[in-house]
């Protein structure tokens, strides 16, 4: 139930411009977006790696071997910056998804993103503390 159009122009004579395959190289923002999307492969890869480690929890030697294998070390070196890039880009976008109103004003974006960063730091610090203290026990 909407308006009709009286226009008789057809698209036949119009120029349709194809999007170039390398469109994502045309603008730095697009490239950053593609990298952001790509980083999920490494985040996923690292998750697989964690699962493999988990499967070896009852076999300390196999666990250590896997952790120390050159491939695993390489993966961790690559996955770390990728995961950081992934987290930072997504955390920076959180104000768009999560909007908190206080009367007529939005809570400023930096507070929303800041809260995520703070949470990230707190969890990381907690994990490090756990890992370090766990280390002295064992």
């Amino acid at each position, binding site marked *: *139930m909407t*308006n009709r159009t009286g226009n*008789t122009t057809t698209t036949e004579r119009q120029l349709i411009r194809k999007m170039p395959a390398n469109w994502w190289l045309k603008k730095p923002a697009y490239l950053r977006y593609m990298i952001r999307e790509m980083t999920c492969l490494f985040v996923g890869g690292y998750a697989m790696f964690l699962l493999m480690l988990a499967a070896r929890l009852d076999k300390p030697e196999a666990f250590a071997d896997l952790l120390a294998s050159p491939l695993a070390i390489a993966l961790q070196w690559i996955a770390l910056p990728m995961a950081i890039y992934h987290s930072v880009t997504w955390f920076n976008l959180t104000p768009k998804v999560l909007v908190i109103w206080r009367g007529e004003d939005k809570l400023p974006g930096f507070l929303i993103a800041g809260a995520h960063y703070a949470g990230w730091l707190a969890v990381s610090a907690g994990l490090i503390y756990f890992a370090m203290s766990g280390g002295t026990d064992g």
Partner: protein
Amino acid sequence: MGSSDSTCLSHDILIVGGGGAGLRAAIAIGEENPDLTVGVISKIYPMRSHTVSAEGGAAAVIQSSDSHDHHCYDTISGADWLADQDAVETFVEEAPRELLQLEHWGCPWSRNPDGTVAVRPFGGMKIERTWYASDKTGFHMLHSLFQTAIQYDNVTRYDEWFATKLLIEDGRCQGVAAVELGTGQVRAIGGKGVIMTTGGAGRIFPFTTNAAVKTGDGMALAYRAGVALKDMEFVQYHPTGLPGTGILITEASRGEGGVLLNKNGERYLANYDLGEAVDVNDERHPVKRTMELGPRDRLSQAFELERQKGNTLQGEYGDYVHLDLRHIGEKKINKKLPFVRELCQNYVGIDPVHELIPVRPVIHYMMGGIDTDLQAATSLPGLFAAGECACVSINGANRLGSNSLTELLVFGARAARSAVRFAEQNSTINKQAITAQATQEQTRIREQFFQPGKGTETIASIRVDLNRALEQGAGIYRTEESLQTACDQVRELKERYKSVELADHSLTFNTELIAVLELGSLLDVAEAVTHSALQRRESRGSHQRSDHAERDDEQFLKHSLAYQTDGNPRIEYSDVSITRWPPGDRVYGSK
């Protein structure tokens, strides 16, 4: 030009112009009788229409402290008693319902803390009654109307079609000939009732708030068809436009407390019989109907007199004064005047929170237009008009700020109702005859503009000369001599127009063709403006004659009616309707 299609398009009601008035009319028909088909012809996409640029607000009585009589009096005294008082009373009475209706259609009106609609004061108002959507009222109104209109499937939109001629058969308007920009075809589009809502013609002047599309096309179509253009000499200067671009700085900036300063930093309006300057920090400021909240004509004239005294500043784009909003503060400016701030930052590179805004009077609105009665009907059966292209008249010699947005709703809806009644009684369209007329129109356009080698003139040169003629001859202050010169120049330009040749002979989206047709409209409107002004030997509202400085009710408490002839237009006069407010002095500021 290709061959015209033999099939005739037709609708029950045809609306020419897709701005506020046209869309309001379209919705009114959709609401009133969904069985009727409606065609909306617009030379641009409807949401691009100039209604979009209106900033400050729309007037209607809503506060209990206000009254219809107050609104009537403000409008009539603002109009220097040239408004038809029966029309004003009807307008004032129907105004609140129209704005409420728009609220029900989703218009994001600014609100009071309790959720009711908020109002602000405007120039020439006893009591604040201007509804607003921050400072983009016209934008929000137009988009609300457009988005509401989309849902009606009895409406056919002809987006980017340009009407070139009214098609008259059996003494009644039965449609228009229009060129479809996309294909270059001229087609007949029939309508049992035809409504003109094509807006004003500010582009006859060089320095205007008006968008490029404001070329008076509907006025010219009616004028050529023998309908009178009424009160065309009354052209409103808005006191605060940005020098150079002519971009409007809304009156709401003064409604919110902004003040005008000359080069010495003085609030010079105090010297022009507009009341006393109350300190900006005094809680009484801004005092209504006083100083910066005086009517637009008086403020623009004060600028001109101040300029003659040498008290204005000189800039690259002419003389200017300052609009000072600094005391309003960042928070309130962001909330109530965000667009003003954005425009100043983008186009002047200054921030009104901390700096003074350079402003000068700028052509803004045509009080005159197609002569209509209270039912929006013209003298040509089947033709109706509403909005700025029409003259009912509620605006008289000077329109009160924020009446125009309301006017296009009230009279857009009234025109729709009238056209529906007319269409019920006149149910036939002579399709064969109007199709033949459209074919002739196509031939005329091709022969006039697409003959290689005949042209010696360019569109731009004629337009620039026309703009100069109007600015020099028919500006804020006019004389017999200046107007006579302008009349002669317009006559010459109309001759030169016959020798325009286009560089573009293409059928697909030929914007040069549209530009030359628009130029034709401008020339006809300019002719009516200059001749009506020449004949009115008095000063009233926006029409100030240095050689006839007083208002002359005996001779000129009358509407002028300009009729096109082969030579100069014939100017006739008609009575002004006076109901309860006999002509009196316009008093602004305390006695």
